[in-house]
């Protein structure tokens, strides 16, 4: 034990009174239980797991088909469809925001009456719990499969989450600001207009843009089920197994999404920073 030639001046051979290590029995049992459930779940799936080692090779083969020489012939059409998807996302976001801001405000504590608050929150919760795509899908069967109905579906399906964000934002800015207006004799409408709205507006704008970013992805998905746009085109060419075109379309989707994310993200940051600067200026 060379390690024991320590410079420690204490008598090195005295027995240390080391406390006993706390038991980790329960976390071990828990980990084993989780592991067992996962194994059972994995075995229950109708997947031939022994094929898995061949998977990377197979996927590499298709990746080569898609990206070795992406077919640029259909690029103009792809850009056209991309704009259609973006339009769907944008108009859907506008509809969603226009509806959810007033509804969300009414659902905030201290703004709407309790029965309305409870009802609205219930509606938001239900919409939130059902996947957006399913809501959109159902609406599309009723209204018909067009890009416009796609936008409408996005607008309605997003209300659940957006409405929740609105009332949470309103509730978080409520302290202080609203008291001043109320002290000056303002009623609920005046408090909302002059205290809550100015304080919450930057955050709400930022959330509105965020909704647009989410919709960009969801609109491509709606396209897959027939609402038009880049998703429909991708779905078609995947069914035709024209891999070189699929590759080009995927590149377009990735670039368009990243670009929109970057632009929208930059604007969101500016909005929030602007709000911060104003806050600082106000408080100093």
């Amino acid at each position, binding site marked *: 034990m060379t390690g024991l030639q320590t410079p420690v001046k204490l008598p090195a051979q005295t027995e240390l009174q080391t406390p006993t290590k706390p038991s980790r029995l329960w976390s071990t049992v828990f980990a084993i239980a989780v592991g067992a*459930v*996962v194994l059972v*779940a*994995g075995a*229950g*799936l*109708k*997947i031939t797991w022994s094929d898995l080692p061949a*998977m990377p090779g*197979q*996927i590499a083969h*298709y990746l080569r088909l898609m990206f070795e020489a992406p077919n640029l012939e259909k690029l103009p059409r792809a*850009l*056209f469809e*991309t*704009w*259609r998807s973006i*339009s769907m996302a*944008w*108009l859907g976001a*506008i509809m969603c925001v226009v509806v959810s801001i007033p509804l969300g405000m009414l659902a905030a504590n201290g703004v709407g009456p309790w029965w309305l608050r409870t009802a609205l929150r219930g509606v938001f919760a*239900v919409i939130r*719990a*059902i*996947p957006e*795509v*399913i809501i959109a*899908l*159902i609406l599309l*069967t*009723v*209204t*018909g499969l*067009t*890009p*416009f*109905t796609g*936008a409408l579906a996005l607008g309605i399906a997003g209300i659940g989450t957006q409405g929740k964000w609105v009332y949470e934002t309103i509730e978080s800015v409520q302290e202080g600001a609203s008291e001043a207006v109320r002290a000056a004799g303002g009623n609920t409408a005046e408090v909302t207009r002059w205290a809550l709205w100015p304080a919450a507006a930057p955050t709400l704008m930022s959330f509105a843009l965020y909704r647009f970013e989410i919709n960009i*992805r*969801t609109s*491509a*998905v709606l396209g*897959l089920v027939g609402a038009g746009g880049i*998703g429909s085109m*991708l*779905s078609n060419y*995947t*069914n035709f*197994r024209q891999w070189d075109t*699929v590759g080009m379309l*995927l590149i377009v*989707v*990735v670039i368009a*999404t*990243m670009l929109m994310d970057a632009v929208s993200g930059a604007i969101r940051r500016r909005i929030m920073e*602007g709000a911060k*600067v*104003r806050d*600082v*200026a106000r408080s100093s």
Partner: protein
Amino acid sequence: MTTGELAVPARPTNRFRTALIVAAFVAFTVATCIPAIGGIDLDVGAIVRNWRNGAGKMLQLLQPNFAFLPRTWAPMLETLQMALVGAVASAIVSVPITLWAASPTNPNSWTRITVRTLVNIVRSVPDLVFATVLVAMVGVGALPGVLTLFLFNIGIVVKLVSEAIDSSDHGYMEAGHAAGGTQLQINRVTALPQTWPLFANQWLYTLELNVRISAILGIVGAGGIGRILDERRAFYAYGDVSVIILEILVVVILIEIMSNLLRKRLV
């Protein structure tokens, strides 16, 4: 806007800026409504016409056919299995990739940027698009579903956790470096326990998300409850569709409650 500007009330400039923002907003919105360039044809009439046809379907939706319920158990179980397997597989793989993508745990900027770029590319592909392409590659079934969830989850966990690591206090790393440790040693002994709650939180979040997503993956052929949802919809069996949606709603809420309980215990 700077504090300097605020000192001198520059209302006209603000007004000009506001006008510019409004103009940009209007121009973008108008451009999204021009069908000739790919924008959307705002044909409200068509919706009204279709709505009349669709009203009956809506009524059917409000009358769930509970007799259909037993036939949904197996696909719902498959959905949950896919969600769990996808979440666990991605949880294991996400740890090294995340530590690779965060700057305190990976000082090498080249590998860090490469990993981040790849993850960002994966993140920008919508889930069902992955599923569609993977179904075409490996065939219909649960496998493309699990693969989709796996990729999707890695994107989320790596992005959120690596950003959290970047912005958290990591003084303990300096101690590890000062003691002559390699980055790998420091990550294993100190960074991993330190970031474990961040990981656990995101893993639970991906599990919740997976239940929602795997419910719809079947629409493009990737297994689970979505498959029969799409099938019943194609047969206009809206009573059945309605039961499936209610079932998804219940399962999603149950999973959320469970994961909130777990979250409280873990963190």
